[in-house]
């Protein structure tokens, strides 16, 4: 199972900062999930424009840090906005840092993912689901819908909020050759449930929930 730090490691340091990435690396992770959006033509780390720090960290700096400290770490870029300019900037940045092969572009929008693939076919994409609530209904329906959703987005992975993950949906995804990443898991009991279902990666605020081996 891939151990993925949410916004770096949001429980251990302020989210979407270099300190959060450092904290995640210190505990030990395989990948970091970072929220990315565009501010004044720069790709920065932030969950939303409203929560923007006064001096937001750029994705450039984050990738630089990872290249120096832990070059094998994977990057899940959670695209919080859309737009051709932003998508082009993001792809350019990943190319410049030679991070395309170890990056995963995640979005809830099939259109965004389609555009990203057109820009850079070598970049893996992940469809994020769901956006709203009503997890039980979505969880029941998802095994029947997931193939269509993934096909519409052309995604090679899926990032699912953990309450919608069930055994049938994991099995269906694996039939399709699509890994399942779960967000945002902060309780060991939830982690154990997902582990038993064979989920491929878990995104967490606190990477210490992963058993050390």
């Amino acid at each position, binding site marked *: 199972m891939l151990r993925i730090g949410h916004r770096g490691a949001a429980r251990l340091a302020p989210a979407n900062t270099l300190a959060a990435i450092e904290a995640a690396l210190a505990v030990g992770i395989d990948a970091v999930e970072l929220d990315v959006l565009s501010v004044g033509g720069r790709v920065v780390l932030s969950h939303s424009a409203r929560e923007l720090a006064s001096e937001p960290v750029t994705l450039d700096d984050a990738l630089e840090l990872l290249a120096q400290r832990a070059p094998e*770490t994977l990057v899940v870029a959670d695209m919080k906005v859309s737009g051709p300019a932003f998508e082009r900037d993001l792809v350019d940045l990943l190319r410049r840092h030679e991070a395309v092969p170890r990056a995963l572009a995640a979005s809830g929008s099939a259109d965004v993912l389609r555009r990203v693939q057109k820009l850079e076919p070598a970049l893996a994409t992940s469809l994020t689901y769901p956006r709203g609530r009503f997890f039980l209904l979505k969880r029941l329906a998802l095994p029947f819908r997931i193939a269509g959703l993934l096909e519409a987005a*052309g995604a090679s992975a899926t990032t699912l909020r953990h309450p919608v993950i069930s055994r049938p949906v994991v099995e269906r995804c694996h*039939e399709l*050759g699509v890994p399942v990443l779960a967000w945002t898991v902060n309780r060991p009991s939830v982690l154990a449930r997902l582990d038993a279902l064979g989920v491929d990666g878990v995104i967490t605020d606190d990477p210490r929930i992963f058993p050390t081996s």
Partner: protein
Amino acid sequence: MRRSGPAALAFLACAAAGVLAAFVLAGGVGAQGLLTTGTTSTGTTTEPEPTLVPPGVTIAGIPVGGLTADSAIFTVQERFNRGIPLVLNRQRRLAPTPGVVGATARVEAAVQRALTAAPGETVPLTVLVSEERLFAYTATVARRFNRNPLDAQVFLRRGRPKVVTERLGVAVQRSQLAGAIHKRLVTMSRAAVRVPTRVSMPETTRRTFRNVIVIHRGSNRLELFNYERLRKRFRVATGQSVYPTPLGRFHIAVKWRNPWWYPPNSRWAQGLKPVPPGPDNPLGTRWMGLSAPGVGIHGTPNPGSIGYSVSHGCIRMYIPDAEWLFNVVDIGTTVFIVPG
């Protein structure tokens, strides 16, 4: 659980190819196969190891083992800063942060101690609470949650009584609340606090309107309602046009059995003498005096007048009806007199 970087990246790349081929079932093998064949490595290359908190150390129950000092400070501060849920009922709740109630924690000092603690040790967290600010905060809670009791009410709607149920008064017990919040702060618990309150009753409750009388002056009817439901209907006599029965909302002020009749100070009664209880008494056997002066509901020795507007303002009933009604209603029972 651990997987090498290259294996994982191959896993994602393979999955990328997998989707294109997914529908011919090629990707599944690739993704799954690689998933189970990672070689173990750290996945991170760390430079000079920063000082870490020894494994298993907790600060006031929060595990900080293996964290750097900065991470430990952040994680403890974040846990301390969480709101304390104050619950009045399902809909009404607050969650003040410790800062709002005037509490701070000596997080850095605790982390310094944690760095040099023995593995598995529990380091206490010093929490400072300003008693004045905490008590001042309870005034905010009281302003939000306190409410005065509201009396039950009755009014007429389309000729029928409509009863509005009373509302209980709530007063937050500020000292008890401050004590409960204080306890949560110093024990680092964020379990919900049930806001302690004192409940006060309104003076008038719904039960006051168990009986409501509605008198229709025009059609000479008296209706007795049980709350909003019609229970019984009587034919009565009401005041003639010269001495009309007053309209409005009244209540039963007095109840007399076998009353004497005294001539009122009115022109029609001039020269008449008081009448003792008996078959000729104009009030029959029961008198239910209303809050309107000189007006009441009573039996009559003159049953022929029932159904007509012939009295001098009073509401006359058949003697058995008046005796029955007398036993049902109480002093204070609401009486509406309407024109229709």
